[in-house]
């Protein structure tokens, strides 16, 4: 096994999931779209840490990794957004955030402590308090179906402003993720297709190719679901 992944949920309302990946060997990980933008703490073999910001991916991206390194990934919910970046600027963004010193990094003109795996909530809360991290409740409400009477055009504006991707594309990503999970659990691709809501297996295969960069028989390494 070249990577060991651990993950947890969070009781912070703006965090979707927190991941901890340890890289055992050198390798290349295919980062697949998952509808979330992330803050990633990268720990190198010396224990030195740096922070990277990645926007919502629209296509699979190969990410090389070295043995002995580690990363902590904070995935944010779709309605969470950064005050200084528009949704458009976020899409497919990969940005190294400069360190202020060994234990602090800069984001949006503020200085934050680089968190450990079990401390990410205090970082995210500080980001909220300083106003750097904001929450568009329209996006959250639409996704949780709490708000159904909203005009699609208005909802779209909110999605594009915060998530940078349309609600439609977000749904496609979620559906592809569902399908991968079903296949990983042992379902046949034809059943997973129906289960996830695709019209047929070719439809599933096409979607997986576009979004996950793999075919239905080849989904074992996709972990960020």
């Amino acid at each position, binding site marked *: 096994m070249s990577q060991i992944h651990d993950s947890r949920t969070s009781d912070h309302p703006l965090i979707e999931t927190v991941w901890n990946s340890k890289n055992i060997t050198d390798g290349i990980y295919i980062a697949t779209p998952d509808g979330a933008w992330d803050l990633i703490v990268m720990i190198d073999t010396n224990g030195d840490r740096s922070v990277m910001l990645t926007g919502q991916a629209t296509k699979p991206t190969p990410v090389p990794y070295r043995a002995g390194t580690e990363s902590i990934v904070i995935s944010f919910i779709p309605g969470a957004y950064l005050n*200084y970046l528009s949704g458009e600027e976020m899409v497919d963004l990969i940005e190294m955030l*400069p360190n*202020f010193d060994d234990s*602090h990094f*800069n984001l949006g*003109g503020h*200085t934050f402590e680089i968190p450990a795996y079990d401390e990410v909530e205090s970082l995210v809360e500080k980001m909220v308090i*300083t106003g750097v991290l904001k929450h568009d409740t329209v996006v959250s409400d639409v996704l949780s179906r709490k708000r159904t009477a909203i005009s699609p055009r208005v909802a779209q504006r909110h999605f594009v402003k915060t998530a940078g991707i349309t609600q439609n594309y977000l749904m496609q990503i979620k559906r592809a993720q569902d399908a991968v999970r079903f296949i990983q659990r042992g379902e046949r691709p034809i059943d997973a297709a129906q289960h996830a809501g695709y019209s047929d297996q070719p439809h599933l295969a096409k979607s997986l190719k576009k979004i996950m960069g793999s075919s239905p028989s080849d989904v074992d390494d996709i972990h960020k679901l």
Partner: protein
Amino acid sequence: MAIKPFKISVPEEQINDLHDRLKKTIMPSEIHDAGWSYGPTNEYVSKMTQQLLTQYDWRKAEARINSYPQFTTDIDGQTIHFLHIESKEEKATPLMLIHGWPGSIVEFLDIIEPLTNPTKFGGTSEDAFHLVIPSLPGFGFSGPTREAGWNNTRIAHAFNSLMKSLGYEHYGVQGGDAGALVGPEMGRLAPDNVIGIHVNAATMGFIPMGPVDPKDLATFSDAEKARLGRLGRFMSERFGFNSIQSTRPQALAYGITDSPAGLLAWVSELFTEYGEKVDMVDRETFLTNFMIYWFTNTAASSIRYYYENAHDPNAWTPKENSEVPTGVAVFEEGDVAIRRYGEQGNTIVRWTEYAKGSHYAVLEVPEVWIKDVQEFFHDVRR
């Protein structure tokens, strides 16, 4: 509006070039035994250039400033450099500190800790501030201005935008010299965001606009009469720098851009009270301040600030009262502000007068200055 982290890193060639120019300084002739009556003396300027060549350590000063988080952003087409030091007290009051001419962010370095971490100095956590310390557009690491129009109003707009982009909806402003002009203007432009304005070394807006009727003199206190006298003397004997900078700044610009001794002599007038108090400000701070102008090539754009304000069509119309609570600290050895004039355009809720301290009070009497700022904002928050 991207906000990028920034660290000062002056290339070694620039330091070498400065040393070369200093070594080749051509001294002007002077009248023997005239002291500072005509302006800075050869003795003073040589002493300063010698200090820059031998004892002064720029890298140490650079590292010191870099120990604080700094950023640059682009607002209204202009780079704005600023320090942003957040208190560990999350509920600290956001406060912008604005320097003047020929000052810089260097004036505030020693008070960063007491203002952001008051409990360490025997104070209470309620007095903590998050500090935003910008370099005025056209000054220091904000870099030269390349457009006309960077007057107090345009600067105030940019600084309000800066606070907003940092997520600060409600914030205080403190300013001395030019800062005492920009601060009140920020209040006028964003009265719902600026919670309080504290000024020292206040001039325009706090002084008489024309001659004072001799009949009224009896109604002034002794301290006020002394300030009127100081203002009169300033206008008749020391206003020259202001006039040339307000009318033909580019004529002066070449001398103070090309010659470090030229720039140093020019700015030393303000930091030594025209030679009356040669050690008013500590040497290290004075030289670091000078270096910032020198390394960023902002002498010329900094003096254009005067031209822009002098040519602002709105300069002479009375300013409306923003009603933002304003506190004025007067340091009697150098200030000229008089309450009744300040009250014409500002809602003054606090007016304090201190016997000690002058134009650079934050450097000369920091504990007094800090306490006045803390007390003013304490009252504002209530």
